[in-house]
């Protein structure tokens, strides 16, 4: 396509190849370790032979917290019957059937099998799971919670639907590579409460690190599909979705250090808040999962998230307006005044929570302009939730603004009102436009 991209692709391919060779070597060395890579089931099942209504209800709630349905159900398919294609940089994965059908689902699994899968990422038949299944997070789930989720899954309608084989590119179609991946990136172990923190913080940490599997998006993924614990919650591009998952540990991104607890809880559970609104993949999480959590659990998550250590090493940047040429600024201001000010206000204060503020909004000013550009091009609706069933929405402007105009207005909102974002140029709009729904 374009020359620079080809070069980058070649370089990326070389790096990838080198990493793959390393991983294969690692896999070979670790081959003899394989028996221990298939751990024995953990502590004995606490589930009674027949799960009670209380356990099944709790399992349903926990399955919501883990957002199992979002991946394991096709948009118009039967719940948990799988089949949904999950595009990854390594090819397409097809999510399996987890209804209790004996032949095609998990009907013949035991609570031990299920716990081993959740805790270690190893399926009933010993197959190593691809880390698209967030077992690196689910490993933190307690045995009792795993048993409850299993009891709930056993109680749903069984659906006979064969799993579709994955369509992964070589060499990723070789599951033995996963032994290497697991050695590098997977740390097995249930959540251990921190005695220095209170019960609420610990509950929040358990939900965020475990079932919530927030790290799947909010910790950057490298070329091998791994993420490093030292970079936990520091943000990154979500592969194949072309959204940026902001850092939760930087007050310049989605760091919540200076948010009120209620504002964080609203964002998570309601989908809108007085500080910002969820769109895209985060709206999906709110819609399918977080809106169903109890006020107490959401508040616990908010307490934990707000307490995450902030890793900003430099002082907060000042307004970058001086970097923008007056003519671009004026173009941006005019477009803003015509198209945006009605909802977001001439001063960028919005009408929160219906229309989010743009002044001082970290998701507008953060280093990556991807989400701001996307919103201007495609618009978006906040998720319709139990506490906000009739959300307000923003229209697309991709057909109204050309690349220069879109760049000018995105630049304007990133630098106006003392916002500390950096300017964007037309090529960034054009690059993203090619990847987005039109």
């Amino acid at each position, binding site marked *: 396509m374009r020359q620079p991209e080809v070069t980058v692709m070649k370089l990326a391919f070389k790096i990838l190849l080198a990493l793959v060779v390393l991983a294969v070597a690692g896999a070979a060395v670790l081959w003899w370790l394989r028996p221990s890579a298939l751990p024995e089931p953990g502590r004995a099942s606490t589930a009674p032979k027949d799960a009670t209504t209380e356990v099944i209800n709790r399992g349903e709630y926990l399955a919501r917290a883990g957002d199992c349905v979002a991946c394991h159900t096709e948009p118009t398919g039967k719940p948990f019957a799988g089949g949904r294609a999950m595009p990854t940089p390594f090819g397409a994965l097809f999510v399996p059937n987890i209804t209790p059908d004996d032949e095609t689902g998990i009907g013949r699994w035991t609570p031990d099998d299920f716990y081993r899968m959740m805790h270690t990422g190893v399926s009933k038949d010993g197959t190593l799971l691809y880390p698209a299944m967030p077992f690196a997070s689910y490993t933190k789930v307690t045995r009792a919670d795993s048993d409850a989720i299993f009891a709930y899954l056993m109680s749903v309608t069984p659906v006979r639907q064969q799993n579709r084989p994955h369509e992964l590119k070589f060499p990723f179609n070789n599951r033995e590579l996963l032994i290497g991946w697991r050695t590098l990136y997977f740390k097995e172990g249930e959540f251990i409460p921190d005695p220095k923190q209170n019960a609420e913080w610990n509950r929040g940490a358990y939900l965020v690190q475990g079932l919530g599997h927030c790290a799947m998006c909010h910790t950057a993924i490298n070329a091998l599909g791994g993420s490093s614990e030292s970079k936990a919650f520091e943000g990154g591009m979500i592969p194949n979705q072309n959204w940026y998952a902001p850092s939760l540990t930087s007050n310049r991104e989605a760091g919540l250090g200076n948010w009120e607890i209620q504002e964080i809880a609203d964002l998570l559970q309601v989908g809108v808040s007085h500080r910002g609104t969820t769109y895209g993949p985060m709206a999906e999480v709110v819609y399918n999962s977080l809106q169903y959590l109890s006020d107490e659990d959401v508040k616990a998550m908010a307490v934990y998230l707000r307490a995450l250590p902030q890793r900003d090493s430099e002082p907060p940047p000042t307004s970058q307006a001086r970097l923008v040429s007056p003519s671009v600024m004026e173009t941006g201001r005019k477009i803003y005044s015509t198209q945006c000010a009605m909802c977001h206000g001439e001063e960028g204060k919005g*009408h929160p929570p219906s229309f989010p503020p743009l002044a001082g909004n970290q998701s507008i000013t953060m280093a990556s302009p991807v989400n701001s550009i996307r919103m201007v091009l495609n618009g978006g609706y906040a998720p319709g939730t139990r506490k906000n*069933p009739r959300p307000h929405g923003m*229209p697309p402007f991709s057909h109204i603004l050309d690349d220069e105009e879109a760049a000018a207005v995105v630049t304007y909102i990133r630098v106006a009102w003392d916002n500390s974002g950096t300017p964007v140029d037309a090529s960034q709009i054009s690059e993203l436009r090619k990847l987005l*729904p039109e």
Partner: protein
Amino acid sequence: MKPRCLRWRTISACATIAGGCASLPVLAQSEAIPSFREVDSMEARVQGCVTCHGQSGQGTSNGYFPRIAGKPAGYLYNQLVAFRDGTRHYAPMNYLVAYLPDAYLKEIAQHFASQRPPFAPADPMKADLETMRRGGALVAGGDAGKGIPACVACHGVALTGMEPGIPGLVGLRPTYVVAQLTRWRVGERHAAEPDCMKRVATRLSDADMNAVAAFLSQQAAPTDPSPEPANVVRMPLACGSQK
């Protein structure tokens, strides 16, 4: 506000549409710019729709985006659900409504179904007389030899649609009509089974589609834009969306 309306794409539109700026509805441009009176209102909530469909669903100067005002609420609701669930494919719509619950989609559908904005004047006629004659014949009488019923048999004698699930066809531009008929024929667009529109679309040739679309685009605004009540006439084909 008004001078602004002449900026943006209006300028390029002027260059391409015969007749020049004089006939171009400047109003239609300002109708595509976000505007509302109360934040807590449906009017404010549907601002996500206005840059393509206009403030009252009357459509915009962009030929691909359809007028949705006054179409039956059942039809609009079916489309919103289909966009949300991915059974009707149009990426910008699929994205916008992905996380909206049924009850709200129904309310949005009812909102636009109840709108009665004026119709934009028809674009200048581009089709030749033979095409218009063929289009008129198909719309009013169908083609018995090819098993094609008249459009008016289901979409209403005034082409304003029929409750609860059949859309009005007046005010739709040729680009949109041809695109939808083509998608139906190739199986990209569906309706509830039995899918009567699929049976019709597969019997229409490309020339027929162009003729129907050209003729529809030249129809005068109806005196009463409301859809016909449900099933006062027997429809020539069984349609799942009328159940």
